[in-house]
């Protein structure tokens, strides 16, 4: 096998590989002798067919197979001889060569093909322990805790039973039995016993709650309500329904005070413990925010440091995937999708910038991970899978099967885990400077930068184990 370099431009390479006729012939014979044991030809016992006869019978099929395996072997060898890392699978151009195939056999000439690929850029890793990165830390104030406590109090407002004979007003909670009749017949879902209803909450169809204002405990009412035209149950939409309602109980809202009793009603032993729980929840939220900002700052820094060229094909595929995501988001929001061509130049270059950053950071992170032997273990993968599955309650089995049957989906799951691990590793190296800020500052800092926060495209990560095998 001989290799000639045809093109070397930036990260692009094109090489010509020449396979001598002898090698090709040898490969064909190898495949034929494999075939020999398996085929039955009339006039011969199994395995006794002469190769020359087999070649006449199965030549074309075997030639294709031989070509395939030769291509695989030689292209790998060729790349190894170049000693370079590929950005993605090489493109093999056979358009000219296949026509030659007949000629190769007949005239015993050498077979050659062109192969084009892009190499991964070479770059030096910097010493991360010299980096200084600012971490935004949000302090939790007493007011934050109180604020969320009040929220909790609001949603857990206790109701106190009113004196018999008192009149229901807005905001009261009623316990009722009701029976609905459509054309004199009861319908499905139209009856209920011991149902609680909060006046003014708007949980029932409009007109129903209004009828229950100014009634007293124990009263029986009957009235007619028209269902709205857009009611989800077709048979009821726009229909007039007669309701018979018995009011069992009326209770009014009471003020909540933040004390130990309130905490006990929520299952905590004392108010201090409740406060502690709220505080830890808030601090968890703030921690994740500050970690995000730290990650962002790290990536920003890395982007400043590294400015090597990225392989154009990787870049292109990243731009396409961003564009697809944007399209998807727009579709979900119901916005009109702009045609890819009519996209403004500015937005386009913005996407390109983001994609370049993503690819570049992805390359750097994967290299760091590789050099430091960071791997995603099965356990971590299982954990990630579990988290993923939990996001779709009711479909656990389906999702699990989906991942079980799709190794590529699983490796897509692997990417974020790998990224997290590498980031963890880097963060343990770099010097962090804490700065105390307000919550909204962090949010502003992170806002709209979803794209910038996911630097690793799975394509790069997917290749990692492969490279190790070689």
């Amino acid at each position, binding site marked *: 096998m001989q290799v000639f370099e045809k093109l070397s431009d930036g990260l692009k390479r094109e090489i010509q590989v020449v396979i001598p006729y002898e090698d090709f012939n040898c490969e064909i014979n190898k495949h034929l002798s494999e075939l020999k044991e398996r085929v039955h030809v009339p*006039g011969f016992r199994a395995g006794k067919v002469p190769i020359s006869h087999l070649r*006449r019978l199965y030549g074309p099929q075997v030639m294709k197979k031989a070509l395939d395996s030769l291509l695989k072997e030689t292209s790998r060898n060729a790349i190894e001889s170049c000693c370079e890392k590929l950005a993605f699978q090489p493109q093999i151009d056979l358009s000219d060569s296949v026509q030659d195939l007949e000629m190769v056999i007949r005239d015993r000439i050498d077979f050659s093909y062109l192969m084009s690929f892009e190499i991964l850029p070479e770059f030096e890793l910097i010493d991360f322990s010299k980096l200084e990165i600012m971490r935004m830390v949000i302090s939790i104030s007493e007011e934050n805790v109180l604020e969320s406590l009040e929220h909790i109090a609001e949603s857990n407002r206790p109701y106190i039973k009113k004196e018999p004979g008192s009149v229901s007003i807005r905001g009261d909670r009623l316990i009722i039995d009701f029976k609905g009749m459509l054309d004199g017949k009861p319908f499905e879902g139209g009856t209920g016993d011991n149902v609680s209803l909060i006046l003014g909450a708007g949980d029932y169809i409009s007109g129903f709650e209004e009828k229950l204002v100014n009634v007293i405990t124990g009263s029986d009412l009957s009235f007619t309500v028209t269902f709205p035209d857009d009611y989800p149950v077709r048979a009821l939409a726009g229909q007039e329904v007669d309701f018979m309602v018995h009011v069992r109980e009326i209770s009014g809202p009471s003020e909540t005070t933040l004390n130990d009793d309130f905490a006990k009603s929520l299952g905590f032993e004392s108010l201090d413990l409740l406060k502690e729980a709220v505080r830890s929840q808030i601090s968890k939220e703030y921690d994740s925010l500050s970690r995000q900002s730290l990650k962002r700052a790290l990536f920003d820094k890395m982007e400043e440091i590294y400015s090597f060229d990225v392989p154009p094909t990787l870049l292109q595929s990243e731009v396409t995937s961003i564009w697809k995501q944007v399209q998807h988001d727009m579709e979900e929001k119901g916005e009109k999708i702009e045609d890819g061509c009519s996209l403004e130049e500015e937005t386009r270059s913005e996407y390109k910038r983001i994609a370049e950053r993503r690819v570049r950071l992805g390359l750097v992170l994967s290299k760091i991970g590789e050099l430091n032997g960071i791997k995603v273990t099965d356990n971590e993968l299982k954990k990630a899978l579990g988290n993923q599955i939990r996001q779709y309650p009711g479909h656990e089995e389906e999702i699990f099967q989906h991942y079980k049957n799709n190794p590529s989906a699983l490796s897509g799951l692997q990417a974020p885990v790998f990224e997290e691990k590498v980031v963890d590793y880097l963060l343990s190296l770099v010097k962090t400077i804490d700065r105390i800020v307000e919550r909204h500052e962090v949010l502003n800092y992170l806002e709209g930068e979803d794209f910038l926060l996911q630097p690793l495209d799975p394509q790069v990560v997917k290749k990692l184990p492969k490279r190790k095998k070689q």
Partner: protein
Amino acid sequence: MSVKLRHYDVILSPVITEKSTSASESGQVIFNVARSATKAQIKEAIEALFEVKVKFVNTLLCKGKVKRFRGRFGRRSDFKRAVVTLIDGYSIDVTTGL
């Protein structure tokens, strides 16, 4: 000797079996030939068609098998084979066809 149309009527097909392949190692080639063909005709046809020299020809007549179909007897047709021995130095590649 030039190729004549009747030569094609004499030689029907090569016989490609394990036996014929092993025979080819000792310079013998086996053909299915017309039942009416004589050894002399076969020799002439082979020499014309394949441009080789024939030492001698042995022939054999093979009776068709008796086959039963729905209780009735039938018979496959008989055929003649010729084992052609070539003069040393000549060979025929039967796999490439005529």
